[in-house]
C-alpha cells in the first residue's frame, strides 16, 4: 500500500500555508500575516454580533478544529494514521471534568493537566504502534476508540467517572468582572488557546524537530540514515498529537458542561478523520474548516430531510470530495498554482 506516497502528495499542501498565511519569504510573508490578523480581528468581533447559540456553535467549531489539528500533526506531517483520537479527546475531557468536580481545580488549570495526561497516553500508545504498518496501526487505534467508552463505564472507576451517567460541570464566568456572557467568554478563551496552539504547531513544524517528523513521513529509511531517531520522534509525535486533542477534549467538557462515555465513540474519531480530509491533510488552518464541517453539515443534512439525513450528509461529503479530492487545502493550492501560471 502506497500510503506514504499519497501523503507525500498531500505534503505539497504545505506550500499553501505559505501562500495563504505566509510562512514564505518577503512579500508573501507580510501578506500572509495581514490575512491572518484580519481573520483574527473578525474572530474577536464575532461573539459580540452573533446570537448566544451561534457563539456556542462557533466555540465548538474551534474545539473540533484543535482536535483535528492534533490529528493533522500526526497524519499530515508524520504519516501515521489514527482512528482512535476520540479516545484522547475523551481522556482530556474526563481529566478536566474530574479535576473540576472532585478536586475543585479552576478550569484554566485543567487544560495543561488534560493535555499532559493525553500526551502520556499518546506517547505510551505510540510505543506498540511503532511496529505496525499503516493499515494495522489503523486497526490498533480503532481498537482504542472502541475500547474507550466501555473503559469509562467500568464499575471500579465509577466513583470518579460517574459511570454511564457521566459528570456535569458548571460553566465558568468571565474573570476580572469583564462584562461578557459565559458563552462569549468561553468563545474568546477557546479562541486564545486555539490560536496559541496553532502558532506552536506551526513553529514545531517549521523547526528542526518538525523537519525530522516530516522526513520520517517521506522516507523512514532515509530519515534513519540521516541520524533521526525514528522511535523517539514517532512516539513523540503521537504524544504531541494526543496533547492537542486532549486539550480540545478538556475545552469541550468546559463548553458543553457535560461528559459521558457515549459522547466519545468511534463516530467522533471518524468525524475527526473526515474533518481533517475535508480541510486538507497536512494544512493546519484547514483543521478549522474541518471543524466547521463536522459541526454544521450534519445539521444541514437534517434540515434537508429528517428521514434521509444520513444519505444527504453522505452526498454532500461526496460532492465536496469530487470538487476538492485533497480537501479545501488542496483546492486552494491548485487555484494558487493556476493563477501563478497565468501570471507568467
Amino acid at each position, binding site marked *: *500500500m*502506497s*500510503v506514504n506516497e*499519497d*501523503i507525500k*502528495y*498531500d505534503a505539497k499542501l504545505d506550500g499553501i500555508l505559505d501562500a495563504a498565511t505566509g510562512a514564505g519569504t518577503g512579500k508573501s510573508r507580510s501578506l500572509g500575516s495581514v490575512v491572518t490578523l484580519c481573520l483574527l480581528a473578525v474572530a474577536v468581533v464575532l461573539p459580540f454580533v452573533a446570537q448566544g447559540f451561534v457563539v456556542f456553535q462557533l466555540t465548538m467549531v474551534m474545539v473540533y478544529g484543535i482536535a483535528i489539528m492534533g490529528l493533522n500533526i500526526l*497524519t499530515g506531517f508524520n504519516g501515521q494514521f489514527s482512528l482512535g483520537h476520540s479516545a484522547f479527546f475523551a481522556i482530556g475531557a474526563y481529566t478536566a471534568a474530574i479535576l473540576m468536580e472532585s478536586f475543585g481545580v479552576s478550569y484554566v488549570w485543567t487544560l495543561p493537566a488534560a493535555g499532559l495526561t493525553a500526551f502520556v497516553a499518546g506517547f505510551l500508545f505510540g510505543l*506498540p504502534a511503532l*511496529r*505496525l*504498518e499503516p*493499515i*494495522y496501526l*489503523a*486497526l*490498533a487505534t*480503532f*481498537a482504542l476508540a*472502541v*475500547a474507550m467508552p*466501555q*473503559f469509562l*463505564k*467500568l464499575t471500579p472507576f465509577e466513583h470518579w467517572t460517574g459511570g454511564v451517567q457521566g459528570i456535569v460541570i458548571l460553566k465558568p464566568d468571565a474573570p476580572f468582572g469583564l462584562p461578557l456572557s459565559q458563552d462569549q467568554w468561553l468563545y474568546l478563551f477557546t479562541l486564545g488557546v486555539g490560536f496559541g496552539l496553532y502558532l506552536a504547531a506551526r513553529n514545531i513544524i517549521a523547526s528542526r524537530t518538525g523537519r525530522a517528523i516530516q522526513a520520517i513521513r517521506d522516507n523512514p*529509511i*532515509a530519515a534513519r540514515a540521516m541520524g533521526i531517531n525514528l522511535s523517539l520522534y514517532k512516539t513523540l509525535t503521537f504524544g504531541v498529537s494526543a496533547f492537542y486533542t486532549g486539550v480540545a477534549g478538556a475545552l469541550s467538557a468546559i463548553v458543553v458542561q457535560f461528559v459521558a462515555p457515549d459522547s466519545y465513540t468511534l463516530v467522533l474519531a*471518524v468525524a475527526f*478523520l*473526515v474533518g*481533517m*480530509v*475535508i480541510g486538507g*491533510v497536512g494544512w493546519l488552518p484547514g483543521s478549522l474548516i474541518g471543524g466547521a464541517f463536522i459541526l454544521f453539515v450534519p445539521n444541514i443534512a437534517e434540515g434537508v430531510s429528517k*428521514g*434521509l*439525513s*444520513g*444519505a*444527504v*450528509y*453522505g*452526498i454532500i*461529503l*461526496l460532492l465536496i*470530495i*469530487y470538487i476538492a*479530492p*485533497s*480537501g479545501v487545502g488542496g483546492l486552494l493550492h491548485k487555484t494558487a498554482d493556476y493563477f501563478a501560471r497565468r501570471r507568467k
Partner: protein
Amino acid sequence: MELFLQQVLSGVANGAIYASVALAIVMIYQAIHHLNFAQGEMAMFSTFIAWQLMQWGMPFWAALPVTVALSFAGGVAIERIVMKPIEHAPVLTHVVVFIALFTILNSAAGFIWDFTIKPFPTPFGTAPVLGNGLLSAHQAGMIAVVLVMLVLLYLFFRYTNTGLAMRAAAANPASARLVGIRVGWTTALGWGMASAIGSVAGMLIAPVVFLEPNMMLTILLYGFAGAVLGGLTSPAGAVLGGFIVGVVENLAGTYIPVVGPELKLPIALVLIVAVLVVKPSGLLGRRTVQRV
C-alpha cells in the same frame, strides 16, 4: 470441559459469520488494496433486496441468485460511478468516500425499509446437528457455505485467466496495463465480486442477528479484525482469522472475569493487535518487501 467445548463451538459458529465478511473484505483488498468501510452496509443493503424479493413471493433459492446478480451489478456500478472519478486521489480521501457510502446506504435502507427488526428465513432449518444444540443446522450450513466460497475463490484466482489478471492488476497496475490487462475493469470486477460475496454473507447472517439497517456494524468490525489477523493478502487467512476472532471473543467473554459482553470486542481487538505486533503481516499473509 463441557463448557469449554460449548464456548469453542459457539465461537466457531460466530466465527463463520466473521469469516464470510472477512472474505469479502479481503476480496476487495485484493482488487483495490484498500479496506472498504462501506462493505458491511453493502451486504446489509443486498440482504434487504433479498428480503424484499421474498416478500414479493419469491422462494429463497430463487431470491438468492437474483440478489447475488443484483449485488454484483451494484458493486460494479458503485466502482464505475463513485470511485472511478477519484481513482488518483490520496488514500485518506478514499477512506472518506467509503464513510460517505456507508452513511448513504445505511440511511437509504432505513428510509426504504424502516428501522424495525425483521426476521429472515434460513434455508437450512434450525434443527440441532451436533450434541444438544451445540451447533444448529443453520450454523453448520453457514460454515459449509463459507468453506465452499473459499474453495471457489481459490480456484478462480489460481486457475482462471481473469483471476490471474486481477491478481496482476492489484500487484502492479502499471505493468499489468502494459501486458494488455484492462486494470479499470478488473477493479470494477473486484468490487462486483466483493459485493456479491457480501450479499451471500448478509443472507447467511440475517437469520442469526435479524435484519435491520445496523445489523452489520459490529460484525464488520469483527470481520476487519479477522481479515487483518489472517493477513489481508490471503483469502484462506481471512477465513481462518474470522474463526479465530469468533473463538477468542467467546472464550474471553467466558473466562476472563471482568469481561462482560460490553468488553468482548475491545479484548478481541487487543489480542489481535498483540498478535500483529509479533507478526506484522498477519498469520497467513505474505511479507511484502519494499525497494528503497
